[in-house]
């Protein structure tokens, strides 16, 4: 501040010297407005007032030194006072302007700050909203999953009750028929047709009984008995169980196994049942022969949500007619079948899904681009049993 004051007073002195040396008086007096304006603008009202009063004094001093003759002795004082008042008015105006400007700047700064705060708040709210939206989506998905599980559980319970009722009401008459057929079978048949007739009855009883057994198995899953198993050994065993059917229908099996896969914690018998059901389905889909490709590999891609643990994928491909896309989900529902009457219970894939899911895995059916269907099974390496 003293430096500014010094410079401005120097400027005032310079104007005073011009005033004294030129003798132009009032014409030069306007030059005093330069240090006054500078002082007011740079350092404020007080500095402006100081420079204005000093300027008026310097103007009066220069006037005395020039020895002007006035008509009245009071006139120079009057001129100086007028000039000083003019200077002070300029200072007042400039200072007001400066203060207004400063106020404006402060207001702008305040508003900017408020806006920035508002923006930050908005961004925070937006992020919170997005977070809440994520939570809502997650809850919704969870709710859907729970709802699905509840529906499945209700279905299972209904199927369980139905199965028990059907089993009791149907198996007793079946037993009467079966024992009757057995009785006649052990007697001398009067002709070969009669013996065949009784065999047909036995076969019919066996088929009906089998349907009810499958229904009972589906309705009342037994607890898992897990052991550490090499999935390829389970697959090979299941293939051995359907070997006769494979040969009879000229179905070739291609194995594309990743032998480095880790062992899995499985109920071997139940998983064999899964593969037998899948292989039988594939064989039935290829009435005039074809190829079943069994492929195993480690799961590298993470499922949606990104939190699925490491797993093993098994794909079973056939070269049959594939599946109508709208049936891709329905095929896993109990009693859904696309097979002719008498050829399927409609429970094969439902049992597959049930067993895979209680192992904590998943199963999907899709069509292959090359033709035929693909069943994709996924088992987690860190297996967890589902309720």
């Amino acid at each position, binding site marked *: 501040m003293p430096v500014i004051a010094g410079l401005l007073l120097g400027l005032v002195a310079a104007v005073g010297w011009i005033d004294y040396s030129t003798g132009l008086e009032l014409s030069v007096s306007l030059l005093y407005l330069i240090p006054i304006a500078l002082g007011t603008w740079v350092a404020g009202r007080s500095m402006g007032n100081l420079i204005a009063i000093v300027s008026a004094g310097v103007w009066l001093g220069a006037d005395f030194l020039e020895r002007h003759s006035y008509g009245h002795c009071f006139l120079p004082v009057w001129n100086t006072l007028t000039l000083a008042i003019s200077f002070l008015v300029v200072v007042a105006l400039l200072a007001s302007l400066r203060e207004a400007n400063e106020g404006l700047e402060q207001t702008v700064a305040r508003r900017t700050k408020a806006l920035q705060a508002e923006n930050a708040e908005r961004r925070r709210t937006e992020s919170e909203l997005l977070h809440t939206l994520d939570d809502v989506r997650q809850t919704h998905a969870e709710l859907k999953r729970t709802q699905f599980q509840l529906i499945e559980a209700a279905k299972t319970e209904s199927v369980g009750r139905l199965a028990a009722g059907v089993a*009791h009401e149907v198996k*007793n008459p079946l*037993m009467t028929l079966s024992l009757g057929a057995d009785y006649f079978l052990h007697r001398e048949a009067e002709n070969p047709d009669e013996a065949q007739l009784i065999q047909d009855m036995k076969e019919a009883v066996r088929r009906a009984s089998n349907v009810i057994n499958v229904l009972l198995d589906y309705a009342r899953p037994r607890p898992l008995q897990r052991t550490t198993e090499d999935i390829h050994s389970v697959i090979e065993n299941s293939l051995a169980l359907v070997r006769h059917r494979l040969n009879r229908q000229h179905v070739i099996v291609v194995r594309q196994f990743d032998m480095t896969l880790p062992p899995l914690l499985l109920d071997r018998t139940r998983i064999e049942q899964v593969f037998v059901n899948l292989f039988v389905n594939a064989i039935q889909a290829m009435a005039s022969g074809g190829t079943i490709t069994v492929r195993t590999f480690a799961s590298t891609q993470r499922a949606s949500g990104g939190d699925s643990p490491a797993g093993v994928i098994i794909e079973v491909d056939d070269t049959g007619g594939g599946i109508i896309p709208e049936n891709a989900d329905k095929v896993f529902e109990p009693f859904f079948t696309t097979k002719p009457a008498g050829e399927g219970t409609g429970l094969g894939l439902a049992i597959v899904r049930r067993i895979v899911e209680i192992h904590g895995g998943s199963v999907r059916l899709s069509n292959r681009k090359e033709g035929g269907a693909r069943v994709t099974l996924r088992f987690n390496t860190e297996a967890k049993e589902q309720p």
Partner: protein
Amino acid sequence: MITKRILVVDDEPGVTRNLKLNLESGGGYDVFAENHATNALTAARIFRPDLILLDVMMPGFDGGDVAARLRSDPLLRDTPIIFLTALVSNEETDGHEMLSGAETFLAKPVDIGELKKTVEDHIRR
């Protein structure tokens, strides 16, 4: 040849009649059929069977109740019982002894060959 006595308890007359016919037709067995679970204990006391074929699901008084009463009778407690049930599949029973008490369960509809074999095994014990 000593004829062995078998008591068949099942609420389905068709089942008991056919079991009697099949078991007796081969010779070696004398079968008494009882269609009312509540009469099973009395029938067993009178008939004194070497083995009992007992249906699990019967109205009012089920196979478990009948077996409990038989087991509490000093004269009958050692008589082997083979349960016949519609509520399990063949794979579940598969000739194995199931549940506590080491009872044998056979899934309905039973194969007469398997039934005869199981009966013979139990009577021989």
